[in-house]
């Protein structure tokens, strides 16, 4: 019996810019199971990023609820949401978003350091995960000294170093060449298969979506029922 890792109920996110209201998410109810590798797809502007931001606790929905591993993550304090991001979630951005002042190793271990681990512990964790993404020889490089593909692998290592319940990735390959893109997707597959990492990835590449266990199609802030029908497990 599969355990639900993420549940959203009637999720709505409205942006109000002056008098204009933009419904980025209208009504999204989804369920993602533990150990699932899910791709979110849809046209540009359909609300994919907005959905991922809500799930990753980077933003708050205007309506609806989100349950992660049994926890209501909407009606909790900002402090608890921060703690949740640190301990339970990993986030990979399209544009890597590494801290330029930190080396690859430091970028990765900063979150482990924040968990009150000892220096040799968090360093070892960071080294292991960097080795797992194939960057054992780039640990002391600063982001500016790394290629886009390498930077994205550092950011994946950063997202995974605390062994999160869920890894989120928003178009992680959009800035990369095809070889690097393939590396990233293969890493996701590897972590999903080897350690059962739950992954939610936004992509606009159909072949990347096909590598996932399931695709959730989004259209105009709603689930695209027509397309989803074919992918329901």
């Amino acid at each position, binding site marked *: 019996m599969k355990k639900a890792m993420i549940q959203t109920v009637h999720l709505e996110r409205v942006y109000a810019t002056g008098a204009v209201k933009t419904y980025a998410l209208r009504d999204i109810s989804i369920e993602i199971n533990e150990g699932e590798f899910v791709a979110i797809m849809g046209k540009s502007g359909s609300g994919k990023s907005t959905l991922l931001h809500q799930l990753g606790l980077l933003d708050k929905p205007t309506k609806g609820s989100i349950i992660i591993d049994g926890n209501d993550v909407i009606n909790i304090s900002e402090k608890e949401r921060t703690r*949740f991001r640190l301990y339970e979630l990993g986030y990979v951005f399209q544009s890597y978003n590494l801290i330029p002042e930190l080396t690859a190793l430091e970028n990765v271990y900063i979150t482990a350091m924040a968990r009150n681990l000892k220096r040799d512990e968090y360093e070892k964790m960071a080294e292991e995960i960097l080795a797992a993404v194939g960057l054992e020889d780039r640990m002391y490089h600063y982001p500016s000294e790394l290629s886009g593909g390498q930077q994205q692998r550092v950011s994946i290592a950063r997202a995974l170093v605390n062994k999160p319940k869920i890894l989120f990735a928003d178009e992680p390959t959009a800035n990369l060449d095809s070889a690097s893109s393939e590396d990233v997707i293969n890493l996701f597959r590897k972590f999903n298969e080897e350690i059962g990492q739950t992954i939610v990835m936004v992509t606009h590449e159909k072949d990347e979506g096909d590598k996932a266990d399931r695709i959730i199609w989004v259209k105009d802030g709603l689930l695209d029922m027509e397309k989803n029908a074919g992918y329901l497990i």
Partner: protein
Amino acid sequence: MESNDLKVMFFLAYKNLTKSKITFMVIVAVMAMSFLSITFFASIIDGLGYEFEEGMIRGQTGHLMIEPQEDDLYISGSGDLVKDIRRIPGVVGVARRLDASAVARYETIEIGNPVLFIEPENEKDVSDYWSSIIAGEYLSERDTDELLIGANLVKSYAAEGDTQKRFDVDVGDKITLSFSNGFVKEYRIKGIYKTGSRFVDDKIIINFDQYQLIFGPTEDIASNILIALPQRGMEGSYTEKIIDLGVSEQINKWQTKMGAVNQFVGSLQITNQITGTIGLLTAFATIYIIIFINVTNKRKQIGILKAIGIKKQIIMGSYVLQSLAYGITGVIIGNIVMKLLLLLLSIHPLSMPIGQVVPILTTERLMTTSATLILASIVAGFFPSRKAADENILDAIFGG
């Protein structure tokens, strides 16, 4: 806040500081220069005021000046009084003087002028005439036909274009003095003095004994008695000791005697306070703005740190620490450079019309300036980083 939070805070601050060395150096330089601009100018003004007062003390008034009561013209029995005061422990010097005026003549030039009668050796302890001789020599006790003349009366020491009436004399030339009682005598110029003070350098100085020769026998009178103390600030306690001797004359402190000069120094100090305060405010604003811009530039970094789960307090703390590092380093460098400047200027004082000015930096000014600049840097680190840390994560990262 846990101890681990502090660790992360220090780590982030340290990495930011060491990775952006140019920023660090620029901000620290601005800090140090602000520090210098405030303290240096102020210390020159303070030094100027001090030198001004010192010029008066070492030329006109001593630390204490005994003068006759309103109704009297002279202090009588002054010789014994001088001896008694000299016996008070700690007194550095006591000298009596007599004042008169005379018309001085050299060739065709005549100038009405104050004449000061001094006891050359005693005078050395209370004033700086002896060390201000720029040509010839100081008076000795036995000189009867010699005088000292202030540089302000001598043509060769006048500034170019100066039209004031002066004597075209040099050491060895003879000047004729005609006193109010008709007594006339020729004196040879033994020395020319220049203390640097306009108030002091316009006198003719001759020996104390000459007074009796000119005006006839007196009851050991003096116009005033100057007393030098170990340092400023002891005037009150020594006044009491002198009163205890049974002195019934006026005992005036230099501050009282200064009058207009005191007011001048006072307004100098007020000006200094005002410019100092404006300087501090300007420095505060400058530092606030540069650190503000620096932190604002780190908005994205702050957003990312929040996104990966770093606590707001840690992020803010790391920026306050960085600002504190700018502030403390800037103030330390400012202090060091200032100390060096002060050292340099104490070896090579600034020559100003009133004398050799050595800048004075009071501990109070040093502390206020240092504290204000450090405070400015903390405030400048705190508010912008709090603003950035309170911002929506997505806006911070994507620049909404």
